[in-house]
């Protein structure tokens, strides 16, 4: 029997290291027809803000080589709607439900986190200080170590459960941001959010996205994500959750080898909605083939 459970600290123990990335998995139930969502270590629901947000105008998406750009802009109905209408539907899941929280100001983040703190069935918050698609806040907090620490510190004061902080790759040195949020009290870091990119329709001489630039995800970003997970896992003591272009179990194992204690499946959910289940089965198969009986022995075990 292979042991798959991983502990991310501060009472966040996952039955296995497979999570799904915020904004690619809705609220979980959209995937009920495709596989048993509770079989995953957990799932991270769509970015939630204090007030409802309409997001950006269409077009919000462009397909690019081995990837896609999006410019959704955190469209959601706000935390009160989440609490009243969506949270009750999440009680049926037996695994870890994690809520991604975003905001335009420190006060926004604190107010939203305080509300989420009242929900027993939410195991953790993933603090999104890395959305590239909003004008105010978002990535602004995640590109400056002092501002990143400030928002994490403020949320830490009102949220005692596990606090995961999602980092942006759009920085010169991601380890500086990781260390700053670790010092401010983050229990774990997840990386990477999307890479800022752009696509152009040459025939029409126009940008493909309404916002001109957007966030790049999918297999195209995997090497960048792996590099950053490797760097951050050597720079901080808190667990690292790796994401960026994971489409199969081999990709996931690469992240675990690089130092991630868990992984998130993102864009691949759009292409094959059963990807997380396939990745989980494939990790188990990999461990058996390599005679490893505990997934924790794989984490950070890259031979260099």
């Amino acid at each position, binding site marked *: 029997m292979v042991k798959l459970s991983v502990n991310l600290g501060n009472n966040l123990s996952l039955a296995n290291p497979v999570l799904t990335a915020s904004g690619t998995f809705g609220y979980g139930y959209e995937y009920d027809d495709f596989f048993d969502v509770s079989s995953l270590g957990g799932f991270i629901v769509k970015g939630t803000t204090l007030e409802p947000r309409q997001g950006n105008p269409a077009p919000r*998406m462009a397909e690019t080589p081995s990837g896609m750009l999006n410019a959704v802009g955190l469209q959601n109905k706000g935390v009160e709607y989440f609490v009243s209408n969506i949270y009750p539907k999440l009680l049926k899941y037996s695994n870890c439900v994690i809520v991604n929280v975003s905001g335009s100001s420190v006060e926004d983040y604190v107010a939203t986190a305080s509300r989420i703190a009242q929900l027993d069935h939410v195991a953790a918050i993933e603090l999104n200080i890395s959305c590239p698609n909003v004008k105010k806040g978002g990535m602004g907090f995640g590109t400056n170590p002092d501002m990143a620490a400030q928002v994490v510190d403020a949320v830490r004061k009102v949220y005692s459960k596990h606090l995961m902080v999602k980092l942006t790759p759009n920085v010169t040195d991601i380890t500086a941001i990781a260390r700053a949020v670790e010092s401010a009290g983050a229990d774990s870091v997840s990386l990477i959010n999307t890479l800022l990119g752009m696509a152009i329709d040459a025939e029409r001489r126009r940008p493909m996205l309404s916002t001109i630039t957007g966030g790049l995800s999918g297999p195209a970003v995997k090497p960048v994500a792996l590099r950053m997970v490797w760097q951050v896992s050597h720079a901080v003591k808190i667990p690292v959750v790796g994401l960026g272009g994971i489409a199969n179990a081999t990709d996931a194992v690469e992240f675990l080898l690089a130092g991630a204690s868990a992984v998130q499946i993102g864009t691949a959910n759009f292409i094959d909605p059963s990807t997380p289940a396939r990745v989980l089965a494939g990790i188990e198969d990999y461990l058996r083939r390599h005679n490893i009986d505990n997934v924790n022995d794989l984490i950070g075990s890259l031979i260099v």
Partner: protein
Amino acid sequence: MTKYRADLTVLSSTDVAQDFTLLRVSTHDIDPVIAPGQFAELRTVTPTGNLLRRPISIHDYDPKAHVLSFLIRRVGDATKAICRLRPGDKLDTVFPLGNGFPLDKAGNRPLLVGGGVGVAPLMLLAKQLISCGASPVCAFGAKTESELLLIDEFSRLCPVHISTDDGSKGIKGFVSDLPLFSPSELSSFSSVMVCGPTPMMKAVNNRVASSSIDCFVSLETMMACGIGVCLCCVTDTQEGNLRVCTDGPVFNTKSLKW
């Protein structure tokens, strides 16, 4: 309605016009409940390695024979690769998706309006309306005669009125120029259900807007997931940005900001 992801076996791939293919696949032992106007997300390996699925209208479905049909316009690498599949090949399919045309709001004499490949979902719609006792009438427009698709098949089901931009078949002009849309003729219809290019659907809606008849349109946008999670395919409505994939693709035009 349960959604499935399955590798369906291609039964036939037939070019019905230049750039248009009728693809028939077997749903094997799956018994999906399919409403006319729903779509599927299709994917196959392409030479350029396209990542995303392509949302394609369900053209027809025969539940007894387990045969699902798509009428596909070959536009880019992905749709071309899908249409190159041969009998026996597998087609990676997520289906059925979205909300179809509201049969309960169609009434006794619905007018089905198709532009170009937009006739695709109207086949299953016409069949189901007829089986419910309604008497649909079709109005189809295309750039030119060679892009009028499956007219004979539709004509076997119900009356078909035709327009072409160049006058090569039917009246010369847009489908919204057909005499059917004059106020006196339009009043004989119980509803209008449209699928086609957005400018054509807007033109039809403009003709219908002055009447009390409901006009339902099937929107086409770029999509990623098709199941309501990525929020990439939104359209601006009276209720704010709604997802074309799961809130639509069929909308009453009164709810759209047109």
